[in-house]
């Protein structure tokens, strides 16, 4: 028996130790083949957000007794809209990642104006907006099943909505909570990013402030994001 060890055998031993550590850290939740989460992912998704009520407002005159005489009503909502999201996700623990995301959407405020005191015909008035958001989010893996990873996502951030070709802008806060799934598959091309994933999120997206009609309260709408993540 000899106490000598070649440099090569020492390297192998170190590599073997690292591999063991990674397997332990990324232990799969299921008994099936393990998928090791990458450290950094960059992705993009198409967004579709559902309609959202913006409130009812009444244009009132005042009677001699101080009561309201409604001249007309405006019932507004944010129509369903589409947009795009870009994001960077960084794993910070085996089942947790942090995400920075930016998005752009093009919603329309649609307001039904009716109940005119003097009989003006009701109209549906629209106004296109541009909405930009910047958000930080946390992702927690809840299930791994082969190449499929299910996760919960919660985020909060800042929003700017602009109308009138950008001449009028209002800022607000956003927050969302949702469930998502990623399906990973390997690429074979040399020098290409290691893996590619199809990602779909369903979120409940809330907002406070921004361009509103009626009271400035917190409002919620469903949001679906579907796109790709590329891992390095």
């Amino acid at each position, binding site marked *: 028996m000899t106490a000598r060890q070649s440099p090569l055998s020492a390297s192998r031993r170190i590599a073997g130790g690292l591999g063991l550590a990674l397997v332990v850290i990324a232990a799969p939740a299921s008994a099936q083949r393990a998928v090791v989460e990458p450290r950094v992912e960059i992705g993009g998704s198409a967004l579709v957000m559902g309609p959202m009520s913006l409130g009812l407002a009444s244009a009132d*005159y005042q009677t001699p007794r*101080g009561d309201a005489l409604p001249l007309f009503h405006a019932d507004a909502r944010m129509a369903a809209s589409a947009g795009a999201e870009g994001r960077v996700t960084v794993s910070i623990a085996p089942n947790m990642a942090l995400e920075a995301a930016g998005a752009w959407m093009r919603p329309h405020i649609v307001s039904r*104006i009716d109940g005119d*005191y*003097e009989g003006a015909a009701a109209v549906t008035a629209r*106004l296109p907006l541009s909405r930009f958001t910047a958000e930080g989010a946390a992702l927690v893996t809840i299930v791994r099943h082969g190449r499929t990873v299910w996760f919960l996502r919660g985020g909060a951030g800042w929003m700017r909505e602009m109308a*009138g070709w950008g001449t009028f802008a209002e800022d607000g806060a956003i927050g969302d909570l949702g469930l998502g799934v990623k399906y990973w598959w390997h690429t074979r091309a040399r020098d290409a990013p290691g893996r590619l994933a199809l990602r779909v999120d369903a979120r409940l997206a809330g907002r406070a402030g921004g361009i509103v009609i009626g009271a400035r309260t917190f409002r919620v709408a469903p949001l679906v994001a579907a796109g790709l993540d590329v891992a390095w």
Partner: protein
Amino acid sequence: MTGWRGIVVGIVAACLALAADPRAYLKLGADVDGTVIALKWADQPVRYFVTNRDAPNVTAVDLQRLATDAFATWAAVPHATVSSDFAGFVDAPPVSADGVSVIGFASLAGAPFTLASTSFTVDDGTGALREADIAVNTSFDWSTVPGGDAAHYDLGFALLHEIGHLYGLGHSGLGETELTAEGRRRVLAKDAVMFPIAFPPGAVSDRTLDPDDEAGLADLYPATGERRVLGSIAGRVTRDGAGIFGAHLTAFNPSTGSIVGSFTLSDDGTFVISGLEPGLYVVRAEPLDDEDLASFFDDASAVDIDFRPAFAPRLVAVPAGGSSARIDIKVTRK
């Protein structure tokens, strides 16, 4: 050497009558060398006296106290800068062209339905106000009771309205009226102190200014830098492609509940609603059929009221310090 000219406007008690209001809508105007310019004071504070004459139930001291309160209410308007200075009691009545601005009780025998009126002396060369006098009609019984008096008109409101004129504001169209059996108009509701017809005796809900009043003053006397804070809406009202003159416009901000009015002031039907807080607005055009046209325009025959009220087809975004994209409101005949 410039000449002086007198102009009179007033608030009426549940009826119309009188009051030739020169080319005015939100602001009074004066014709200087063929150009209509807004009447306003070139120098402030506005120095005023109060006539040392009592009326039934109201002393000259009461009148002075309420006038001071009304001036203070106008001075507190956001985004505007106006000031006044009470110079003392005088024996002079509130009449034009005597060199001093006076507020006082007077008999307006020729205007039996006029609660109070404001007369101006204008510099013909510059259009600047030189003098303004407010006459409160002694034909009416007045109340100074904080909670109102069901038998008497509220003097505090009347002074607030007339001091709006004193600063150069014209009448507002933000109100709904109905004709009584006697052929006079009764106010159902309104949203501006500067509406030309008063609430009935006992009402005190009109002692505070409304957004329309404040927008008018801010437009006329903007505080330093306020031109970059407030915005405006520009557009056109047409019927069968032709402009409507004298259409009344309202801009409603659903977020704040404020309503601000204006008029189309040219034959092509163009209008500007100014002094608006930035935000989204619903814009509505209506015929000026709730008031006496002479309360607003020199030539009432030019005002077109043969159309149905209509809304702008889209919401309007008002930017800070600028104007909205131009909107077109198409109306149809009644």
